[in-house]
């Protein structure tokens, strides 16, 4: 009987603690902790992942940033996660949302994220990251978006990472960033992924 009640209570929702009490947040001063917990609470209520927010707060704590800056960063990330979820859809995973935020902050328009969702099967974490990282290397956001969307339907995640590395090498060697991507995309129908040596021990990867 009690088990049935337990299940019924779980269905309608048992009361949760007032604010999220994650002991990792003890690294923050009490005032900051309360403000951050409030943001976490709101995020959780609308179904956004809280772990990225916690990590952002911990980053600020380790870097001895002022509490107001930490709170601002967490709030901004929470808002950006919400935008990313609108663009990527409610089923997006936490890593996809984080990568989506990175892409948006790099200058990709929300429509690009939505197009990527349509163009590519599976998780978009790597594709979105590559998009963001290309822009960080100096590639204009529109060029980066065109490049990633062109590769999205066929390329595997490892291919996209290799593409990004190749573009970065070209830029380092002096190619203009916009040109570097288009040359790569046009030549890159058969982008080979690294490490396709079947018998070898898998080596640890590099960022």
């Amino acid at each position: 009987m009690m088990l049935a009640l337990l299940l019924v209570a779980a269905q309608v929702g048992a009361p949760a603690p007032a604010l999220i009490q994650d002991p990792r947040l003890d690294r923050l001063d009490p005032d900051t902790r309360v403000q951050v917990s409030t943001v976490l609470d709101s995020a959780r209520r609308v179904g956004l992942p809280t772990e990225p927010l916690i990590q952002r707060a911990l980053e600020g704590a380790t870097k001895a940033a002022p509490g107001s800056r930490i709170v601002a960063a967490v709030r901004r990330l929470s808002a950006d996660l919400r935008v990313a979820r609108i663009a990527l859809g409610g089923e997006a995973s936490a890593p996809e949302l984080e990568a989506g935020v990175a892409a948006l902050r790099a200058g990709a328009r929300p429509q690009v994220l939505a197009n990527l969702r349509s163009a590519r099967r599976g998780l978009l974490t790597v594709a979105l990251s590559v998009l963001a990282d290309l822009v960080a290397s100096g590639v204009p956001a529109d060029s980066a978006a065109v490049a990633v969307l062109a590769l999205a339907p066929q390329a595997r995640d490892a291919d996209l990472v290799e593409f990004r590395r190749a573009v970065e090498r070209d830029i380092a060697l002096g190619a203009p960033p916009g040109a570097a991507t288009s040359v790569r995309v046009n030549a890159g129908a058969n982008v080979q992924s690294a490490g396709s040596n079947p018998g070898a021990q898998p080596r640890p990867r590099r960022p």
Partner: protein
Amino acid sequence: MGIERVESSDAELVRRIRTGDIGAYGALVSRYRDRLGRYALHMLGDREDAEEALQDSFVRAYRSLARCDDPARFGAWLYGILVNRCRTSGARAARRRRMFVRDADALHGAAHADQSDRLEWTDAVDRALARLAPESREAFLLKHVEDLEYEEIAELTGAGVSALKMRVKRAREQLQRYLREAEHV
């Protein structure tokens, strides 16, 4: 005036966890922590053992979440993991039981009335509970403290209903005897 807080059901949280939101598991942990912790504490008789068993059970439940066939019954499924985990948490609990038995024997030998007067009720209950055989204690706690039906206990423990009823009956008789002993010393 106030904004209604709509909490997610277990099934909803499980769904979110399965799409990558590890943080949603935290909500399930805090939802079940105290209820399951009570069982673990009374079953094992030691707070550290209980919290360790509880923590292990939560971790195990997360790692085998795909095996939870019906996310709406997450609570019951988690219960089963905890009950099994408590069964294997033998060592320290067994030592403490033996210590309690020795204490009870010592108490029989002591003839001082004020000693029995000072005996806390809660301690007496803990000691009496600790003296029960594990399967009797388990059945008693699940039936009378956690309020499960015999069919549900059977499902969790793998024992038959009539065997469970016998264990509960034995537990009740023994508890009564141990506690009357404690009062009369």
